[in-house]
């Protein structure tokens, strides 16, 4: 019977840090991540939609509350977020949020949003803010819940094989490190090429037969020094 692997105890207040430690622990144990499924994915590209933009403009044009308006509300009938929150303990709050997200209907809507280009960050913000407005959590717990909710949304996106945005429209965003790596690689190749060309004494006679078209090679041999002279070479005065 396959036994569960003994794990190194990892504990952190920062989820990202805990994830890093767990993955590195797995690496130390010799686990190979190359077996992970990597089938083609659906691109969750943000699509420009005029209707949605018009709706947003219509909502915005209705105007917001007048400064101080909240102070005129009846104190006997407070808004839900003005009352003590249902969950003061972040663990209990997170349990409630995550269990509501892991419902089939909610998962379906999340997938549809991700496919339509909504970012994980925006969705997470909407979810935790809605919980605050409902009076379920206080602002502190709302902030603490952001990171775990983002990770859960990402996992749902991964399970559905969606290439999703994390923040805004960053699906095509180049990773700075990757760009730097490619630049360095290019520079190296260029240097090698440059030094190689300079070192070798390339003459038409040394070119292997078949490497260049014979007609072209004959023309080069005929032209000889004219071609070998650089265009930038100092001409005879």
């Amino acid at each position, binding site marked *: 019977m396959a036994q569960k692997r003994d794990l190194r105890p990892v*504990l952190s*207040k920062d989820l990202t840090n805990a994830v890093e430690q767990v993955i590195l622990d797995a690496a130390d144990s010799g686990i190979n991540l*190359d077996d992970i499924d990597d089938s083609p994915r659906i691109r969750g590209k943000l699509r420009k939609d005029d209707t949605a933009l018009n709706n947003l403009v219509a909502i915005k044009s209705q105007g917001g509350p007048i400064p101080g308006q909240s102070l005129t509300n009846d104190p006997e009938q407070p808004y839900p977020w003005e009352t003590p929150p249902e969950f003061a303990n972040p*663990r209990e709050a997170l349990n409630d949020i995550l269990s509501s997200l892991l419902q089939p209907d909610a998962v379906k809507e999340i997938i549809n949003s991700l496919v339509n280009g909504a*970012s994980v960050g925006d969705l997470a913000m909407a979810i935790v803010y809605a919980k605050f407005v409902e009076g379920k959590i206080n602002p502190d717990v709302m902030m603490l819940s952001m990171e775990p909710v983002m990770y859960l949304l*990402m996992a749902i996106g991964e399970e559905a094989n*969606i290439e999703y945005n994390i923040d805004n429209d960053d699906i095509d965003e180049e990773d700075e490190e990757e760009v730097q790596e490619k630049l360095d690689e290019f520079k190296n190749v260029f240097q090698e090429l440059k030094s190689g060309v300079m070192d070798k004494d390339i003459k038409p006679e040394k070119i292997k037969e078949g490497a260049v078209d014979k007609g072209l090679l004959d023309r080069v041999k005929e032209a000889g020094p004219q071609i070998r002279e650089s265009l930038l070479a100092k001409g005879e005065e």
Partner: protein
Amino acid sequence: MGFLKKIVKKVKKGIKKIGSGVKKVFKKLKKSKLLKTIAIVGAALVTGGAAVGAFGGSLASSTIGQALIASKNFIMGIPGVSFVAKPFEYAGTMLGTGAGKVTDFLGVTTEAGRLGPDLATQLANVGPTAGQINMDAMNFGQTAEITSYDPLTGQLTGGGFTVPGSAAGQEAMKKAAETAITGASTGAATSTAASTVGSFAREVATGVATSVATGAAMQYIQGEPDPVGAVGAGLGEERGISLTPLEVAYAQSGVDMRDIYSQLTFGTADPGFLASRYGDLYQQPTFSLGG
């Protein structure tokens, strides 16, 4: 909402940091595989494996798996969405091939658990040599009733307690019992078989055999006892405090053990994660103290 946006940016930066850190270890790992690993490990740590449970060992048959597949028609109807492959068909087997690998190293799942028991492999684990027993082979999910083994007749008598096992498991257990009592029973049985003493000895031998087999089975079922820390002795010597690995983890994170429920922490030492990994942790029978 700017303060929430800051958290989003922090998480994104953190993911990139993990990526560059992990890339140093897994040199040729593709970016998409890396992101998948990070996302699933994160979700498993957050939910204590509940997310994986919700998706199901065989995703296609779970409720959320059904929801994923049901979304397919809607998504295919969106203009501009082109399918290079069949993403949701893959979803059904994902935990068995890709994400399952991630949850395996987290200890949330095991490969055997995800893919189902392979009986043929397990049967092959039964020790081929007489007198050897591989306790792994007993865990077939079937039941076999064994009360005692009579070494003189070589028969197993039924009734009594039930242990997980099968015919092969019983056979292995029988051989183990034979080995355990070879010295005691053979001599006693041949010389005094007709006498009362002989009968008594046979019962003792049978009892020993049963105890050995039962003890081995029960140890396998119950596992090893919890380790108990030792405190250094000596006059005037300051007592050392034996910390469990869990206490060490909390001490390093600066969290008081008495306050862990109200602190939001993440990781493999987090009580939420441990509760799901060791499901029986919070379901242990309690004993009332006599008073």
